[in-house]
């Protein structure tokens, strides 16, 4: 199993930390992992993205241009990455602020209204974990047990008290995800 993922959105949405939690969880589950962030000017005040690979084998290149899954959190990122999803692959997006939804027919498309839900629940800080939950429902590349371990490992100790809330958000995401298109 090799899952090549891009997570893309605005800076501040928790794109990089979502990738980090995923990578840590994969590592805890004895998988090979890589986490390659965008850094620099585009991150400083614009879009942020991170490529995460989780694999049973040694990872050849952490730098990839085609993805098994794209997790998309704004319109710019959708425009940029919709065509980089491999045929038969997966695109998961948050419809908030999306004016031109994805149109491809040869990929599986899902949506998760995480922005709306997190505002409704007053849980905006764990917005990214709702998205992560939706992804894990669609592609269970790591099990929940290891997501918890990944959270322990990737969050500084002073934030460990927030882990139950994060795990609840993962559950919320799992329940919230909707299928838009099946390839």
């Amino acid at each position, binding site marked *: 199993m090799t899952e090549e993922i891009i997570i893309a959105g605005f800076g501040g949405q928790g794109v990089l930390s979502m990738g980090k939690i995923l990578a840590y969880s994969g590592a805890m589950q004895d998988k090979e992992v890589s986490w390659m962030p965008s850094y620099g000017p585009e991150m400083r005040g614009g879009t942020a993205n991170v490529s995460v690979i989780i694999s049973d084998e040694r990872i*050849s290149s952490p730098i990839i241009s085609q993805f098994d899954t794209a997790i998309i959190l704004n319109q710019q990122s959708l425009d940029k990455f919709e065509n980089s999803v491999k045929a038969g692959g997966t695109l998961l997006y948050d419809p908030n602020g999306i004016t031109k939804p994805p149109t491809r027919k040869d990929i599986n498309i899902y949506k998760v209204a995480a922005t709306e839900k997190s505002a409704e629940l007053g849980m905006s800080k764990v917005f990214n974990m709702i998205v992560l939950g939706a992804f894990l429902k669609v592609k269970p590349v790591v099990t929940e047990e290891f997501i918890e371990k990944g959270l322990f490992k990737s969050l500084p100790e002073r934030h460990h008290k927030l882990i139950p809330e994060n795990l609840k958000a993962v559950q919320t995401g799992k329940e919230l995800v909707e299928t838009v298109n099946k390839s």
Partner: protein
Amino acid sequence: MAKELKLMKGNEAIAEAAIRSGCDGYFGYPITPQSEVMEYLMLEKPWEKTGMVVLQAESETSSINMVYGGAGAGKKVMTSSSSPGISLMQEGLTYLAGAELPCLVVNVVRGGPGLGTIQPSQADYFQATKGGGHGDYQLYVLAPASVQEMYDFVFDAWDIAFKYRNPVMILSDGAIGQVMEKLYVGDYVPRWTDEQIRKIAPWATFGKPTTRDHNIITSLELDSAKQELHNLKLQAKYREMEKNDVRYEEINCEDAEYLFVAYGSSARIAQKAIQLGREKGLKVGLLRPITLFPFPTKRLAELSKKVKGMLSVEMSAGQMVMDVRLATENRCKVEHYGRFGGMIPTPHEVLEAMETKIINA
């Protein structure tokens, strides 16, 4: 040795390795994409654990001269920077090489020229391997292609630096510096005691006993005949490096008809291109130079008799390809494929270049 699993950025791995390998001092000045090296050191506070000094200098020029001072005292000292900062250090580097001082300099390369960009690049190959400063000198240059190698090569760097009394450079790039991968770390190597330094570096300036003359650290010798002798000694040292300490990795070379030659993050991209090529039935392999000086010239010469062509893949306009051509002496077709200015080639692009420039050319 107890092995502990961590998940770290390449830059953080450099810092962690510095602490664990018994480094005495780090002197640096922040610059993207390697600022995490000093950030991590400052957070870890190694001065409380091992006594290692971490100091933010006022400039790169100052950092490299602090390294000069520490190295002259026989200490394990290092600095890190990225391309424009490394350019500022060139005077210091040639002085260190001239005075035969061991040290570690890490260059996490970004796109140039000038201030250029902050994205990954490999355009500092010439500067690193052909002497970026003046005079006939060489750095020993290691090119890591993973977070684990960023860590391991710090340990290797001290061995080589003190074996040859020569500066060692780890030539990395923004991609390997920023990527986070699994890392296995080992036990702490204690910092050398004064007693150990006296044995390992008897040339160092640690205080003059009555039993010998002064130890003098200098790169100045106004007597040309003596300076020529000094140069001959340096050259003999570089030939020894070529004889004994060349390192490379071969991937899928056994049955390869076509070879990628690539180092650092380009080597990782080439590995993916090999997977894609092999799926199409193309017999492609990779020779990955791990040391850029000394270069795996001999092995490339041997391979050039077996394969039909080689594609040198670099994030530059074509620098290492010159060394590949010199090694292969026209026995097989050698071409270059590169992106630059901070652009990273994709595996598909690299495979396509192999097909159009070499296989179907």
